[in-house]
């Protein structure tokens, strides 16, 4: 099922607001389930979602463990002498943090699945200036490009005989200094080429732009927006009023 990008923006906004307002697992876990199901139904399956998230999942798991280790609340589950290493409260805070981060990621994925051109048009039809909408979409586009550049540079430097895994922390940092500069230079060069191409295509030649693409909300889209807003408002009302 496909939804208008404005519906996706609305969902992402609701999810982000709820993820930032609540740290209660009884709210976050059902929300996460709903977000994952929504992504699964609209963007090609849950397995696809997990595969895209797997790198970040590890990062979040580590952060969650750190939260648990340093939080003294609740029942002590693991300790060395008088030092509590793992507590019930710590684990629950860690899981809550994990869920919040996943929800924010899900929001990003919901927006990203809209496609760059559709997203720009949605923002423009929401009365955001075209230049800012375009800049936002280009910024989203640059993230995977930055990742590719870093990956390629890392591969190239290893192919020159450097075993990064065996380097000490200090040496590794010095090596990354060599990697970062050319990557940033290349990204700036790509950005410059993009700017020139945009000028060549008469970007901002006139104050107003027309667009071949027009987005139209269907009844399902309106329903999805109303549903998301009402659920968000209801959750906030129940907890805060």
């Amino acid at each position, binding site marked *: 099922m496909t939804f208008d990008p404005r519906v996706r923006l609305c969902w992402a906004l609701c999810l982000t607001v709820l993820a930032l307002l609540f740290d209660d697992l009884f709210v976050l876990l059902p929300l996460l389930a709903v977000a994952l199901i929504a992504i699964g139904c609209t963007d090609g399956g849950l397995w696809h979602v997990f595969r895209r998230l797997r790198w970040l999942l590890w990062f979040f798991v580590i952060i969650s463990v750190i939260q648990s280790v340093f939080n003294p609340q609740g029942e002590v589950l693991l300790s060395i002498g008088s030092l509590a290493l793992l507590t019930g409260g710590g684990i629950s805070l860690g899981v809550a943090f994990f869920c919040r981060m996943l929800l924010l990621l899900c929001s990003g994925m919901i927006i990203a699945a809209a496609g760059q051109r559709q997203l720009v048009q949605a923002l423009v039809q929401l009365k955001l200036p075209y230049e800012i909408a375009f800049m936002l979409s280009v910024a989203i586009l640059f993230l995977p490009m930055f990742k590719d550049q870093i990956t390629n540079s890392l591969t190239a430097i290893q192919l*020159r*005989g450097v075993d990064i895994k065996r380097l000490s922390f200090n040496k590794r940092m010095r090596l990354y200094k060599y*990697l970062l500069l050319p990557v940033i230079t290349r990204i700036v060069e790509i950005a410059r080429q993009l700017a020139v191409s945009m000028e060549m295509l008469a970007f901002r030649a006139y104050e107003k732009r027309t667009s071949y693409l027009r987005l139209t909300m269907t009844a399902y889209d309106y329903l999805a927006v109303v549903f998301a807003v009402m659920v968000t408002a209801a959750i906030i009302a129940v907890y805060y009023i």
Partner: protein
Amino acid sequence: MSQEVIISTRAAEYRYKQGFALQPITLDLARSEICFIMGANGSGKSTLGRLLAGIYKPCSGSVTIDGEDSRKLSLSACGRKIGYLWQKPDLQLFAPTVWEDMTFLGEFVGGETPKVRQNAEYWLDQMGLLELKVQSVHLLSRGEKQRLALAGVLAAGSRYLILDEPTTGLDEARRGVLADILRLLHSDGIGISVISHDRELAEQLATRRLIIDKGGISDDIRPPR
């Protein structure tokens, strides 16, 4: 010239997540050859090149580099055996000047400084870049950047080279320089594979031509010389 096989594949297959797949490929590449890997855009030439270099690991079957399974070799170990020259040489240049680019890795690969310097000087000289050693990398022409990247790859100790589209963006004179360098390296006992559309260069250099079509080898030609 040594007939020693450096890279050997047995029903090696590679699949991208997006769907394109390299069909099972069985192949032996020897140091005595200059092998041109040719084919249409999107046929899988570069994928095969990266599989042969150990950058990509086979999804099934095997790729053996210098007698060792590429799956068990780290990228750095592959790089010490097989030099891979990317299509865009900028990707392989890291330091601000030519000399620094050739020597900065010494501290990371644990080599002795005099040895690293000697090696750097030797390969810069071979590539005709010794006079440019204080030059900023960003001021080099495409051909010079490519030769510098090649020098860097060879300084890692590779005995076999894989070059991905090395003549892209080079004029005729610079293509000639590249051809001369490849001949020189080959006569020094370095095996070479070139991924290319350049028929003229292949006519000049190739002792073997692999034609790639739809992810498989459609023809394996050894032109009489």
